[in-house]
């Protein structure tokens, strides 16, 4: 398949403006005649549905949760980037563009990323106008903080709940449109297939999760904004319900799936506690502004700590290895996520891990230095130039509490340890997936009329996403890109009229969903869905995780294929199809995860280089840094579905051309 990314001509900073000026429009009187389906109500989905509803299209929005406000964007903690340069530290659209391309290890599309940087400032304006309560300084101006992979302060935040505030902002805009009837909301509905008529996306099959009824919904365009696929690892920071099903069904109907192996492992999560663990909890990257990451220098000390014989606070300064500061002095603890994660894994693999779990995997995130620094500053600002040690500590802790109080409280709830007194224990965990459905510059997949936005697409983050950029992309896609590009597509649909759901295509799609459901319910196997999901997760984490190699990937491909056979043969799904049946929902999702897992391993195997979150042990330099191969792998790997056997999928390549940024080794030293 020939991939046309439809990147507009012209200089990088004018592409989007020119493109917008030439996109076709739909007149206001025609918009109510046109139906648009939006699947997912996170930042991208809610903002798209709200914007399109506001324009006057007939929008139907779907989410599997009980309310659109619960989409997993809500859990993003740290912040959202925007090139506002309010802090006057040299930020600009170009800098944000450059940082994002570099952070993505030169595997993202230049034009998309520049557009993202361009509209970033509008996002902040928009959100403030909607009443999003961002953090402010005492002058009433918006406050900023720093995130990994940048040397400016461009991250806007609302305590440790930025995602929540932004999502509630988008949800409020969506609610406004639901209230006036422009958007019809379908809560507790899951999209289980895409319907194509004459090659175009014309609707979806959705299951009402309460009644179990299969519903046909037609539309002139379908927008998939269903989030990422991190749950393929079973344990991740994603919500329990986060799934790839919508994206995968689109893939099965002909859309290409790009760069599935690009997965972000977030360095600061709470380590695994035991076998019944259901998910991992993130500790915001913003903590790396104040915390220092270390492990004991000596293995004996690490062993003693694990055995409970030694406390981290007892370890002397010279016995601690602040490994990020040691290896990356320029960025220190604020290196990008992939770099920080790998460095932690390297230390733990060497036996310096401090967590007393099965794998000893854990490192410290220590706030004691910051407590002293900020405590002294606070004392000085109160006019106390000779503070006692206790005063400094007290003020320092107070400062921490103001800045990160909710995160510290959350940590204590989960671990029963007080992070003001003893360093946090953290370890990398699967967090975000850069890969996703392939889309062109207009965010349209290879199926005409099927658009994909937010984490569900692959477009903006290359091989690694920078912190606070996911929120930016979600809202940029939904508020500022899709309304233009979807309208451009719909301009040719004004004569189509209402699309019937009685066509054979709808019947076929509904039947295939029905068959899949019936098969699970009548399977009468012996093992639960979770049993298979956990096994899939283990294979993925061990062999398609933070470090990958040819042997492991080949094994993974085999093992997942075998797991798939066993899953269909032996899975037991209780209950019936005409009721709320969470086990059935899980089974349908895990079936897609298994397919995708195999594809991820295949993608990782073909990408014989290391870049961003994709680290192939065979391709590293003498210092253990990633070794990219721009000669052979400067492309987007987009996979084409070929039927039940995933190993038959065909790789298509979209070449990445860097015209405005000089491609270089990624150096954070």
């Amino acid at each position: 398949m020939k991939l046309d990314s439809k990147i507009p001509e012209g200089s990088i900073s004018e592409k989007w403006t020119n493109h917008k000026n030439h996109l076709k429009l739909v007149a206001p009187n025609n918009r109510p005649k046109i139906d648009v389906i939006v699947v997912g109500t996170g930042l991208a989905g809610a903002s798209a549905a709200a914007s399109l509803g506001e324009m006057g299209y007939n929008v139907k929005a779907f989410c599997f949760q009980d309310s659109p406000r619960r989409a997993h964007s809500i859990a993003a903690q740290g912040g959202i980037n925007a090139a506002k340069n309010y802090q006057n530290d040299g930020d600009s659209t170009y800098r944000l563009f450059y940082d994002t391309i570099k952070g993505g290890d030169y595997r993202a599309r230049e034009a998309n990323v520049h557009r993202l940087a361009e509209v970033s400032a509008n996002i902040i304006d928009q959100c403030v106008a909607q009443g999003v309560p961002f953090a402010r300084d005492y002058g009433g101006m918006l406050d900023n903080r720093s995130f990994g992979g940048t040397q400016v302060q461009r991250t806007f935040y609302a305590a440790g709940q930025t995602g929540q505030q932004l999502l509630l902002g988008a949800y409020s805009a969506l609610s406004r449109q639901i209230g006036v009837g422009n958007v019809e909301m379908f809560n507790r509905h899951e999209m289980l297939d895409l319907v194509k008529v004459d090659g175009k996306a014309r609707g979806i099959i959705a299951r009402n999760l309460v009644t179990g009824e299969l519903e046909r919904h037609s539309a002139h365009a379908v927008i998939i904004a269903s989030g990422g696929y991190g749950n393929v690892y079973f344990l991740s920071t994603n919500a329990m319900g986060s799934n790839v099903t919508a994206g995968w069904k689109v893939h099965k109907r002909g859309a290409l799936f790009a760069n599935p192996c690009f997965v972000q492992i977030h360095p600061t999560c709470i380590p695994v506690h035991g076998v019944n663990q259901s998910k991992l909890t993130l500790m915001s990257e913003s903590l790396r502004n104040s915390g220092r990451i270390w492990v004991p220098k000596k293995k004996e000390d690490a062993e003693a700590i694990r055995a409970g014989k030694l406390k981290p606070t007892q370890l002397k300064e010279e016995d601690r290895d602040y490994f990020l500061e040691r290896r990356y002095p320029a960025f220190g603890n604020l290196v990008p996520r992939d770099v920080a994660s790998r460095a932690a894994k390297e230390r733990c693999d060497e036996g310096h891990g401090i967590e007393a779990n099965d794998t000893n995997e854990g490192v410290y995130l220590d706030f004691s230095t910051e407590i002293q620094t900020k405590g002294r500053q606070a004392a000085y600002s109160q006019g106390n130039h000779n503070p006692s040690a206790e005063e400094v500590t007290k003020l320092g802790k107070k400062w921490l509490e103001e800045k990160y109080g909710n995160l510290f409280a959350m940590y204590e709830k989960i671990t029963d340890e007080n992070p003001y007194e003893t360093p946090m224990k953290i370890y990398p965990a699967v967090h975000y997936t850069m890969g996703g459905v392939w889309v062109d510059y207009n965010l349209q997949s290879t199926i005409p009329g099927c658009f994909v936005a937010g984490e569900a697409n692959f477009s903006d983050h290359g091989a690694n996403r920078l912190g606070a950029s996911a929120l930016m992309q979600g809202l940029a896609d939904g508020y500022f890109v899709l309304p233009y590009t979807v309208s451009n597509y719909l301009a040719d649909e004004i004569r189509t009229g209402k699309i019937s759901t009685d066509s054979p295509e709808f019947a076929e799609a509904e039947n295939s969903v029905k068959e899949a459901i019936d098969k699970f319910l009548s399977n009468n196997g012996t093992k639960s869905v979770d049993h298979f999901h956990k096994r899939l997760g283990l294979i993925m984490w061990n062999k398609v995780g933070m470090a990958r190699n040819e042997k492991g990937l080949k094994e993974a491909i085999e093992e997942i294929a075998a797991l798939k056979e066993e899953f269909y043969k032996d899975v037991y799904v209780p209950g019936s199809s005409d009721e709320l049946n969470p086990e059935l929902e899980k089974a349908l999702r895990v079936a897609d995860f298994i397919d995708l897992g195999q594809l991820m391993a295949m993608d990782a195997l073909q990408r014989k280089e290391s870049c961003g979150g994709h680290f192939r042990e065979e391709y590293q330099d003498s210092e253990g840094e990633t070794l990219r191969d721009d000669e052979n792998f400067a492309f987007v790997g987009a996979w084409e579905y070929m039927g039940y056997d995933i190993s038959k999928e065909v790789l298509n390549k979209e070449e990445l051309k860097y015209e405005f940024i000089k491609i270089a080794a990624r150096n954070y030293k």
Partner: protein
Amino acid sequence: MSAAKNINITLKIWRQKNAKAKGQIETYKLDNVSTASSFLEMLDQLNEQLINSKKEPVAFDHDCREGICGMCSLYINGRAHGPDTGTTTCQLHMRKFNDGDTIYIEPWRSKAFPVVKDLVVDRSAFDRIQQAGGFVSVNTSGRTIDANATPVPKHDADRAFEAAACIGCGACVATCKNGSAMLFVGAKVSQYALLPQGKVEATQRVLNMVRQMDEEGFGNCTNTGACEVECPKGISLENIARMNREYLKASII
């Protein structure tokens, strides 16, 4: 982590086939629950046990499991989100329970939150209240004024944020003896009332949201303060007072 141990517990759980069916409390024994597990992981363990013995698992709402999506609920031993304060059920850990404990688990009880199945309830009433006025009527063009053009006093911004931190879980309704939703609505009204952007529509907003709240069948606030105590996000009663103020102002003027 304080040393985790395993405990054995008895569970008394509300089972109800669907919205129309009659429900009842059923008793389950569950052994070897790690105290490091979260409450929902304990329920996962129960469900695994039920599935393995070919019984129907217990349906309960949950999603993010990090205390922010507001999807999890559960009335545990007579309290919304269980015995710990400032915590959602997903962040409640089994270390708060002892070996041999009997734990009651019931769904939120409110006329406005009908049971869907077992412990799952329908909270779409909250969405409808939001749709009645919980927004600023600004189009999503991005062509608004610069974000820093209107300074907002830090104090107001912080109060607005604290109100906006509501996760819409419904614990306030569940715990209120009157099944009142005033804390939820008060928080939303407050967020906008405190910000200059929200002031333009303040009058209409509070009237519409309160009207919708009453139509949904929530009870009235009698200021018992239970909601504030049980709210996992510590939303303050001040928000209810602020809504009352806004409502009085809107009704008189």
